[in-house]
């Protein structure tokens, strides 16, 4: 027993000492994603995106080796802060990529303000206020956010699908608020309705949707569903089981690969569900196809096609690596040059050109999609339309956009 204790102590000491062995002029990059909880699958794909970008650069940028340190959260803001604090304060990373989920992003942005010498690049978190209101100087988001992702969907639902009144089912935190806002704002401006009492907000990680399904009103044309990961899978199965027959409109992560690619009964009834987001599985463009091929080659056990999480983490990581190349790995003086390079960066991604605005939020192309059944039986998102260069204020001026008010359960009121 005594011997075992010593061995254990030694192993522990070694594993703790591990990160400190790295050579002094390596650059330490921290990646933070949800590797536990309801969004595990999403976080795993996010990490694949980081690794894909690093592999593309052969783990070197600006003439220096990049050392990757990973951190895990469970989609709650405090777990994200805990994990990022460990990355920054214990592991001493100089650049952070992450987090994954909306409210985590808000918390990490606030933390970023207390660490002016570290640069934070978003993972895939997509709450509006991470960059819109009181942004942090050192937080960059090269992936777009939830309201941008909905570009064109509200108009499509109203004009093409002919829906006039929709119910809303979404998780109760900042990212779905942003998505609901992004969808309803144009939908309601055109004349569509979504009464406040037909909006259902459920906690993250809710498993049993049958009562919510029973409470859904009959007199609506469709349901806008903004759930992610396991939550979306649960809802879709139970909706089918309970004989639901209203058409759905999907949030960006409700009908993406992390849901369509899950194991078990095929959810073929979602075929035809319109959605919008930063990626489209079947986009017929060489840049995207090349990205998909690289993803499939590097991660044979990943999804049939990279999810928007892999995509967002990839883009943010790539932005960091490109900027590092530009400044030759110079992170001195509070990473000043590096941040300047990031602010001026404009680069070609698998989904078109990306650059950031003055609040360091991305301007990028958005895809309007519809679920189809692929040739080998996989469910896929087909591109209906590409909306070019969507910015965070959705085309209006910053001041006017602020007048729309903060996203929330009742914005827009739309009744």
């Amino acid at each position, binding site marked *: 027993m005594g011997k075992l204790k010593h061995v254990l102590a030694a192993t522990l000491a070694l594993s703790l000492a591990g990160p400190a062995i790295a050579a002094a002029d390596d650059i330490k990059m921290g990646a933070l994603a949800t590797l536990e909880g309801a969004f595990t*699958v999403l976080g795993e794909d996010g990490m694949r995106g980081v690794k894909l970008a690093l592999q593309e650069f052969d783990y070197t940028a600006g003439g220096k080796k990049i050392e990757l340190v990973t951190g895990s959260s*469970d989609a709650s803001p405090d777990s994200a802060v805990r994990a990022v604090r460990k990355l920054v304060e214990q592991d001493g990373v100089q650049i952070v990529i992450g987090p994954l989920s909306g409210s985590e992003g808000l918390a990490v942005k606030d933390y970023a303000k207390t660490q002016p010498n570290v640069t934070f690049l978003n993972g895939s978190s997509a709450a509006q206020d991470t960059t819109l209101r009181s942004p942090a100087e050192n937080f960059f988001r090269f992936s777009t956010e939830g309201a941008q992702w909905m570009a064109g969907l509200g108009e499509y639902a109203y004009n093409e699908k002919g829906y006039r009144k929709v119910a809303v089912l979404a998780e109760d935190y900042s990212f779905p608020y942003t998505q609901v806002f992004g969808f309803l704002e144009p939908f309601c401006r055109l004349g569509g309705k979504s009464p406040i009492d037909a909006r259902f907000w459920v906690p993250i*990680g809710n*498993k049993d949707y049958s*009562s*919510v399904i029973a409470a859904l009103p009959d007199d609506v044309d469709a349901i806008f569903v903004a759930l992610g990961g396991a939550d979306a899978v649960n809802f879709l199965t139970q909706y089918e089981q*309970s004989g639901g027959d209203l058409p759905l409109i999907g949030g960006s992560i409700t009908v993406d690969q992390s849901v369509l690619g899950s194991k*078990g009964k095929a959810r073929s009834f979602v075929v035809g569900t319109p959605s919008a987001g930063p990626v489209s599985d079947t986009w017929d463009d060489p840049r995207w196809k090349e990205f998909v091929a690289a993803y499939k080659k590097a991660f044979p056990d990943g999804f049939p096609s990279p999810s928007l999480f892999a995509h967002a983490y990839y883009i943010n990581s790539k932005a960091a690596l490109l900027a590092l190349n530009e400044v030759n790995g110079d992170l001195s003086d509070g990473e000043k040059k590096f941040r300047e390079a990031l602010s001026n960066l404009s680069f070609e991604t698998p989904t078109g050109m990306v650059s950031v605005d003055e609040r360091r939020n991305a301007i990028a192309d958005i895809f309007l999609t519809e679920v189809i059944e692929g040739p080998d039986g996989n469910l896929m998102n087909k591109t209906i339309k590409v909306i070019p260069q969507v910015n965070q204020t959705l085309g209006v001026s910053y001041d006017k956009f602020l007048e729309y008010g903060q996203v929330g359960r009742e914005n827009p009121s739309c009744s």
Partner: protein
Amino acid sequence: MRNFIERHTFWAIVLLLVVVLFLWMIFAVWPDWLVEAFGRKKTFVNTLLNGVTLGGLYFLVASGFTLIFGLMRNVNLAHGSMYLLGAYIGYEVADRTGNWFLGLAVAFLAVAISGVLLQVLIFRRMANDDLRQTLVTIGISIIAADAMLAIWTGTTYQFSPPDWLFGAADLPIISVIKSSGAAVYIKYPVFRLVVLAIAVAVGIGLWIFLNRTRIGMMIRAGVNDREMLAATGVNVQLVFVLVFAIGAGLAGFAGVIGGTALSVAPGEDIRYLLASLVVVIVGGLGSITGAAVGALIIGLAEQFGLAYFPTYGVVLTFLIMVVVLAVRPQGLMGGRG
């Protein structure tokens, strides 16, 4: 029963009235003023059924938990991991053989065996040291969660039950009568009714086992005073192993049932552990009846919360727990404090 009515006549009448009211609300066609006040009947009846069936699922998980605690005074915080392990094993078997029932059986057996191993290899070494046992179970649950994440990744799994268990059935309960005079019947997922039936069957089975068999008698005696039981010449360790096997097996069994009704994903272990804890705190630690009552209350609270005030629904569950702890700390059916 008669005793209860004689002693608490007032409460018996209140209880009877509530039951009658519920039955009326389920079977009558709702008048307009009631729809005005409560929303549609469909919502109410479905929520009620959901609450009861979810309660059934919680009972399956919590009964094993409470059984183990009752006999061994061992708060097995790895109970949720056994639920999840059962679900994954069941999925693998059901997926490979295409037989859902085989998956169910194998999950029960495999997790029962893992329970036996836990008891024989670990808990027996630290008998009479409750705190240490509890801490060890936390450790096991953390390691098990990561090991399962490594093997089955974070993907959400969903069972494919036989077709006749999938889909919705018309219940003989009228939802509304259309203006044309045609009655609209309420639809309900078949599998959830099956969950309820299984929970009731398991509950009755456990009751018969505990109250009508010799081994059950030994277990009950052990719950009351295990030293005394040992002194009468019963091999207590063997009884412990048996109870652990049944308790763990039930968790694995519930994993397949729950994974079919809902889904399987990492994090479920904590969720069901928490649900079991709340259920047994409300119902009373160590009591099977308590687990049934607690599961029913928590299931209903969760579902009504979700349907009628989704945003704050979660609070309801814990509010009930707080009230029970304040008014009756030993739980509704708990015996000695």
